[in-house]
């Protein structure tokens, strides 16, 4: 599943926006490595910067945003230094493609679905005309659209939401990219359709050897598809590890809080856990740990100094002072412990 060949490595990325005459720091020095063929999920609440972070890999930041510092290394090139459209054209689609959240608006309403898929093929696969059309029909079939020949000629308004999302995925896949970024790919869809789309993405990943980044706030999606999980809070990755490490042995209090708010983990008869307070104001400079004001386990140092990454295992690290040897021992909340026990029991049974 995972090997050690890095395809993308982001280091200490800082992204700023100008908004209402003020400067907003959307990404505050986030780092991430992506390995070939894996599925990485970036989770976080709205406004945590997960979309902005991945958009910067493709030069799709809004006009008022810019990369302040840091690097994005892809195939020995630093994408953070790319400025012109001509630079980005070499990356967009061909190397990294993206699937957006809302399939209802992601397609051009006045072009047939087939033409929109074909456009990707003609751009990136050196095929024109009939050949490109043939491949487009094939890909439509691959994404699970029945009667692709007939559907090729139809307009987006003749498709349902789930079907449109398949078309959007087909457009991305037709570019033949290395990396596929799926920005909340199932959020706008019915629950029954969600699972189908995720299964489809899994299948396509195998068939086309894709590395996939899922951006989501839905931990259910994550549990289904992700090999690794990066937890994002206030523009920084605060915990990163293999899926089971983050789910069953989380270290950062924010990850605890996030997992505790899963309804499945609620303890019967007790009120469902919810994270108190609001995310920090990104217009202000954040001192120390961004989560500290909302963290019931916050240490004094959390308000003073930003924690470094502490390594838990070679694949698992977290940015919290609680992992410092001098810090007092804090047990994760009951629900997290319960989850871990359940997993251990399940593991024993399997043995």
């Amino acid at each position, binding site marked *: 599943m995972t090997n050690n060949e890095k395809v993308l490595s982001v280091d200490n990325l800082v992204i700023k926006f100008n*908004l209402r005459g003020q400067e907003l720091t959307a990404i505050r*020095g986030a780092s991430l490595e992506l390995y070939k063929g894996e599925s990485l999920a970036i989770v976080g609440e709205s406004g945590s910067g997960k979309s902005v972070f991945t958009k910067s890999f493709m030069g799709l930041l809004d006009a008022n945003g810019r990369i302040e510092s840091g690097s994005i290394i892809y195939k020995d090139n630093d994408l953070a230094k790319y400025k012109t459209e001509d630079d980005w054209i070499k990356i967009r689609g061909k190397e990294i493609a993206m699937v957006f959240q809302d399939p209802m608006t992601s397609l051009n309403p006045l072009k047939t679905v087939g033409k929109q898929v074909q456009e990707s093929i003609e751009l990136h696969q050196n095929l024109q005309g009939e050949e490109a059309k043939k491949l487009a029909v094939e890909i439509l079939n691959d994404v699970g659209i029945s009667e692709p020949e007939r559907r090729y000629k139809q307009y987006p308004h003749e498709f349902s939401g789930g079907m449109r999302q398949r078309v959007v995925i087909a457009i991305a896949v037709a570019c033949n990219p290395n990396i596929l970024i799926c920005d909340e790919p199932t959020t706008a869809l019915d629950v029954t359709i969600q699972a189908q789309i995720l299964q489809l993405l899994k299948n396509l990943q195998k068939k086309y050897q894709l590395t996939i980044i899922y951006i989501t706030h839905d931990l259910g999606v994550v549990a289904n598809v992700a090999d690794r999980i990066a937890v994002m809070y206030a523009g920084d990755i605060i915990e990163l590890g293999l899926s089971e490490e983050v789910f069953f042995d989380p270290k950062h209090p924010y990850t605890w809080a996030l997992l505790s708010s899963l309804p499945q983990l609620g303890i019967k008869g007790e009120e469902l856990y919810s994270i108190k307070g*609001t995310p*920090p104001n990104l217009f202000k400079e954040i001192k120390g740990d961004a989560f500290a*004001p909302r963290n*019931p386990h916050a240490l*004094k140092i959390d308000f003073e100094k930003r924690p470094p990454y502490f390594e838990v295992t070679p694949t698992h690290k977290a940015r919290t002072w609680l992992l410092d*040897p001098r810090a007092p021992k804090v047990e994760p909340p009951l629900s997290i412990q319960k989850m871990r026990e359940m997993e251990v029991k399940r593991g024993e049974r399997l043995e």
Partner: protein
Amino acid sequence: MTRKKIMNDINDNIDPSLFEFAEYDETKSELTGYSNYSFWKSTFQVFMKNKVAVALLILIVSVVLFTAIQPYLPNQKSPTQIYINPETGLQYRNIRPNDPSVSENFIFGTNSIGQDLWARIWSGTRTSLFIGVSVAIFEAIVGITIGALWGYVRKLDAVITEVYNVWDNIPTTVVLIILTYVMKPSISTIIFAMCMTGWLQMARFVRNLILIIRDREYNLASRCLGTPTSRIITKNLLPYLVSVIMLRMALAIPAAIGNEVFLSYIGMGLPIDIPSLGNLINEGRALMMDPNQRYQLFFPAAVISVVTISFYVIGNVFADSADPRNHV
């Protein structure tokens, strides 16, 4: 500030006492959030950022104030009196502005029958502004009433929609011409004719807004949360409504001034003894082929341009600044 290297070493000189629990204060956790947004404040801020609009606003306010007080200033002449040279007993015909050879001082000169152009221009501006503002107000009253009924009373929707479709299909110019042709020329005729066409747009916008209050999710949500109707109206609807109404009214004024000029041009305007910008343009046009007399066209043309452009720009910039999407 951030470390690339994952580090677990302890040689960082951090005071160990810092590794104690901080006091957790739930209210403090709320403080970090951002919500100091105020609709009107942001609207004002965005508007003030547009230098051109602010300059025009100052300009138009001064012009309006000046037209109001001009007759009461000292040494003003009557806009309708024909001035006669006491030495020759003849009228002061086509005297150029500030002509030194004439003992009396006409700031903008006189017209072809010896009336003072300066006084006539301000009097005409008053007339035209009066027409413009009246049309804007009547349009707003009729448009909002019909629009509200249209949007609110579901039974009326189909009926008014059909009426609207028919009425909107007739060119505005045709309605103006035929109404003024049939009725006697007067200020009220002109205002009536313009209102007959102008309310359509206003009614449609108001109707669409009413539909928004009824159908938008956030209003449904507000109602479910028990927000009183008055608060829904002031917080959710009024911002939209005010900006749209202001825009329509601001645009109605230059349109009305333009229509008055048009009607005067085709001979359906005000009687010529009432100075209006349309009548002044017509008088100026009659003499414009004589380079010495062109001032009689240029002065009213300049005033019309200033007034119409100001209202148009201010209305549009205000509408833009009242659009929450521009509050960034």
